[in-house]
């Protein structure tokens, strides 16, 4: 697009009501881009050190998730607060193991009810591919078919150290993301 044409397109967009929303969206994007440089680092820094996980247990990896919030592994020092809150205030969902056909709609419902931005960790072999239960009639082959996953933590069940490493990887990822 030549720079001289820009003004004429803007006026045409304002006149046409169907394109008005697109214009507003573009203005919003421009605002985000403008904020990203000076404030993006600070906003992401705030998000990294206050990840609130939802307390939704899907299967047996919840035992190791519980051990990770216990006194020996103590995930709170990495900014992961213990999972005892409402999902309306959460921004992290740790899929703790196998997702069955009955649990899958609930998991999606919980994910949809969480406010943006939200991050997903798939914990355990079952959440990644179906794992040991790949040939069972009631188990989904991996959770990424229903919700988008940021970090995969392998193991059956993963040791708490592995879970902590996964959350640190997620924090690295958030640091590099542009703010939304």
């Amino acid at each position, binding site marked *: 697009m030549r720079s001289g044409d820009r003004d004429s397109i803007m006026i045409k967009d304002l006149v046409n009501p169907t394109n008005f929303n697109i214009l507003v969206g573009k203005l919003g994007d421009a605002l985000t881009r403008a904020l990203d440089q000076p404030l993006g680092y600070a906003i992401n820094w705030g998000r990294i050190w206050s990840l609130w996980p*939802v*307390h*939704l*247990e*899907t*299967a*047996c990896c*919840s*035992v*190791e998730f*519980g*051990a990770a919030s*216990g*006194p*020996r592994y103590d995930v709170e020092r990495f900014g992961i607060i213990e*999972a*005892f809150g409402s*999902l309306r205030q959460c921004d992290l969902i740790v899929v703790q193991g*196998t997702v*069955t056909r*009955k*649990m899958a709609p*609930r998991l999606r419902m*919980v994910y949809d009810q969480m406010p943006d931005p939200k991050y997903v960790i798939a914990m355990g072999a079952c959440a990644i591919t179906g794992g*040991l*239960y790949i*040939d*069972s*009639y*009631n*188990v989904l082959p991996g959770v990424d078919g229903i919700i988008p996953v940021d970090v995969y933590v392998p193991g*059956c*069940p993963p*040791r708490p150290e592995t879970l902590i490493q996964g959350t640190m990887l997620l924090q690295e990822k958030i640091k590099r993301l542009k703010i939304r």
Partner: protein
Amino acid sequence: MDNLEQKFNETIKMGLDIVKETEEDRLMTLSVGPQHPGSGHFRFTIKVDGDYIVYCDPDPGYVHRGEEKMCEYRNFIQNIPHLERPIIHDSTNITYSYSLAVEELANIQVPLRGQYIRALASELNRQVYTLYWLAIYGIFLGHSTMFMWPMGDRELFIDLLEALTGARVTHAFNIPGGVRNDVPEGFKDRCLRQVAYFEKRLTEYEDIFYNNPLFRQRTEGVGILTKDNAIKLGVTGSVLRASGIPFDVRKAEPYDIYNEIDFKIQYMKTCDSFARSTVPFLDMKESCHIIRQLLDKMPKSGEVRAKLQPNPKGPPGESYKRVESGRGALGYYIVSDGTPKPYRVKISVGSFRNMLALPFLLIGSKLADMPSIYWSLNYWPVEADR
């Protein structure tokens, strides 16, 4: 009253849109779980009339993974890793009765040292399970110290089991014919030191949790399950023993070397939530005595596992064996048609039996008593769903 009725009829005649309040309108339906801090992988619907629960409908099956069907297309040895997943923090006990049932089918004799190591791992795992249960019970009642202390002490038992079996929670240690490997060097001293430390800690638990006036107020006299009702509902394990019935599979049908061990059945007669939360604690104390005896009586050397063919199989037949797990009697019913794969496997778990008492206990109690009743039933949803 007649006056009111008359007025109501008059308003109806006037054509006003007024609807009389019925009994149903006063009730509020609440759904507890699966996204709930305390319910775990389980959902139950309750209806409350003011403060009192009038209806309860348990809805298990969120973690139903078809274990019993999966058993049919794996052979007897391949079945072990996935059979311990329903209760990974009590994994030695759930494979214990499976191994016993397969041994009965294939007529395998376990060496004496193997039997002792098996019982030792089983008792250590009972501590790990009960401590996890106690931690969740504590945090569910809002007692944060009782989450941190058992979780911390549990890691020490996990360290012992890790030295013994090589894995933190999923051991796959019991196999048909014995155990996978021998105890490591210096294990006995380490185990005795840990048990001595843990017995000191148990008295501290009693002071801070069981003698806590807040805890006693919330649990004493709550959720009464009388002796007759406990038998009628078919509950098992600590819930049954809390109702005044001294039943323990280790005493009633001694398996392996449990008839050589001297221990008492721990039971209480008060039948309430407090009794149901105290009996597992007493079991932990008794378990410490059992661990000491096992370490003393264990033969110094010998085989730990019987030699098996690569695909063990027995003649066509069936077998049923049960053990006392952390939640009660845990049995396996296996039918074999003579091939290396089982024809049918039925897992009879303690959690499912105890869950059946939940609607019975909740109806008529207050909503605030729901947490203390629910977790006192010693229920683990993943195991009940299988």
